[in-house]
């Protein structure tokens, strides 16, 4: 039974952590983008407007839930739930800190440490596509349908690029477990430069670009291009159902940033010193610091780049990103072959 109790505690903790993070995330994005655009941003609710997201959430709860007359009711309600579900489930495998040792028992700081964690992450993001596709179809309206077809085509295309970008990382570290991937990045090159997977620079860049596309973030937010298709797949959504889509998108942004940290920036690794409690806390701090840095990069890009044209987006995905990642896989494979077996002529 203790297995179920431990699992329950982990899941509840993960949920609370994510909710607080998303609350901050939405506020940080709005504040930071306001700074970049030379305006103030939310400043009424709480100090520096930090409670604005909470106020918006409460407002969403009290709004009328409108279901269009032509909607498929079950799927219309199910789609935002699915979006939220996959976003939450993805987070479960991400290790937010080094394993903590209490009374000789080591506790992983990922809610669950799957030995095929990376595959699980990809599978969850591919199920997430359903939420958007079904939302558009179930609305029974033309703009959502166009938006959802766009979104699903985009997400499937960039999922391929993302999967291919991850293969060199897996080949390099020899594991699909996120915890094992972080552990493989602990050392240093020559005692100075940390041995992070960012040495696989092409993979890092491709993964980040695909990450923007996967989360439907600008400059790849074609699914909700206001000038062309109103709100895209969530045009007909209001109240809490819309809020769920909104939250799911932000959780996904956090997930992508966290996974980037885990895969390429050494996860929780960083200088650790001091008493035991500090030694538990510092890895979590390093992990969050790196993750938030990437999140700020996401916001910076949003403020700087205009939305891409749809055919450019698809051409970029299929004709540039995927070929480049395939060539990169071959290069990494050859390099690893050399390291493992030596030169073929030797």
């Amino acid at each position, binding site marked *: 039974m203790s297995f179920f109790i431990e699992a329950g505690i982990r899941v509840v903790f993960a949920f609370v952590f994510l909710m607080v993070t998303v609350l901050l995330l939405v506020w940080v994005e709005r504040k930071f983008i306001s700074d970049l655009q030379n305006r103030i941003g939310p400043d009424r609710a709480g100090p520096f407007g930090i409670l604005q997201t909470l106020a918006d959430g409460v407002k969403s709860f009290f709004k009328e839930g409108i279901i269009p007359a032509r909607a498929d009711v079950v799927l219309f309600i199910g789609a935002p739930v699915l979006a939220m579900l996959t976003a939450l489930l993805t987070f479960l495998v991400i290790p937010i800190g080094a394993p903590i040792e209490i009374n000789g028992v080591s506790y992983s700081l990922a809610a669950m440490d799957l030995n095929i964690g990376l595959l699980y992450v990809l*599978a969850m993001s591919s199920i997430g596509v*359903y939420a958007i596709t079904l939302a558009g179809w179930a609305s029974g309206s033309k703009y959502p*349908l166009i938006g959802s077809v766009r979104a699903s085509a985009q997400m499937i295309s960039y*999922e391929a690029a993302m999967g291919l970008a991850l293969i060199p990382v897996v080949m390099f570290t020899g594991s699909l477990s996120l915890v094992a991937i972080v552990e493989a990045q602990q050392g240093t090159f020559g005692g100075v430069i940390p041995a992070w997977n960012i040495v696989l620079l092409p993979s890092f860049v491709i993964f980040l670009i695909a990450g923007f596309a996967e989360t439907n973030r600008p400059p790849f937010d074609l699914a909700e291009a206001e000038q062309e298709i109103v709100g895209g797949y969530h045009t007909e959504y209001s109240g809490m159902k819309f809020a769920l889509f909104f939250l799911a998108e932000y959780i996904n942004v956090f997930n992508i940033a966290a996974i980037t940290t885990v895969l390429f920036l050494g996860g929780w690794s960083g200088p650790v010193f001091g008493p035991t409690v500090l030694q538990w806390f510092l890895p979590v701090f390093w992990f969050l610091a790196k993750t938030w840095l990437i999140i700020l990069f996401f916001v910076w890009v949003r403020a700087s780049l205009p939305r891409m044209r749809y055919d450019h987006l698809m051409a970029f995905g299929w004709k540039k990103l995927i070929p480049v990642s395939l060539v990169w896989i071959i290069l990494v494979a050859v390099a690893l072959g050399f390291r493992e077996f030596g030169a073929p002529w030797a």
Partner: protein
Amino acid sequence: MPTLMETVTMADWFRETANWVFLLIAFPTVFGAWRTVSSDNIVRAVLYLVVALGGTAAMFLMLGAAFIGWTVVLVYIGAVVILFLMGIMITRAPLGAEAKLSHGREVKVPAALLSGILFAVIAGSVVDAFGASIIRPFEPTLTTDLANVLFGRFIIPFEVVSFVLLAALIGGIVLARQDDVGGLE
């Protein structure tokens, strides 16, 4: 837990928790598969296919084949079926039932017959291969072991299968390109 097939009674079978989990997965899977062919709404039919495939993935997870289970989710649910769904949405995606979706008897009977034969062949070969052996549920196999088998002993069949996929891809391109050959340009 009894070790031989002969000694298992119905009561023994139901005493095993894993069997209850099996039933919990198996019933929705079969239901999903049945509704896939019987549903009147084409989008709903595709979604029932997702349920059936999800059940299959869960079954693999239960057998400890986590890698294959998640690959089923990633490839079949996440890529193949979502492309079905997109194809339907771009061409026709009516809300509500469609009268013309079901075939007549001349298609239904051979299809049912073929499914029956396929089931018999698969069930026969599974019983033949694993017959009396007891598989412990939820014990994961290592992905490395799987890779060693796949890229070691079964490397030739593996590569042959990928050539079949390549042929299908080229066929798809040929079919899609047919309009250009007609001299439209």
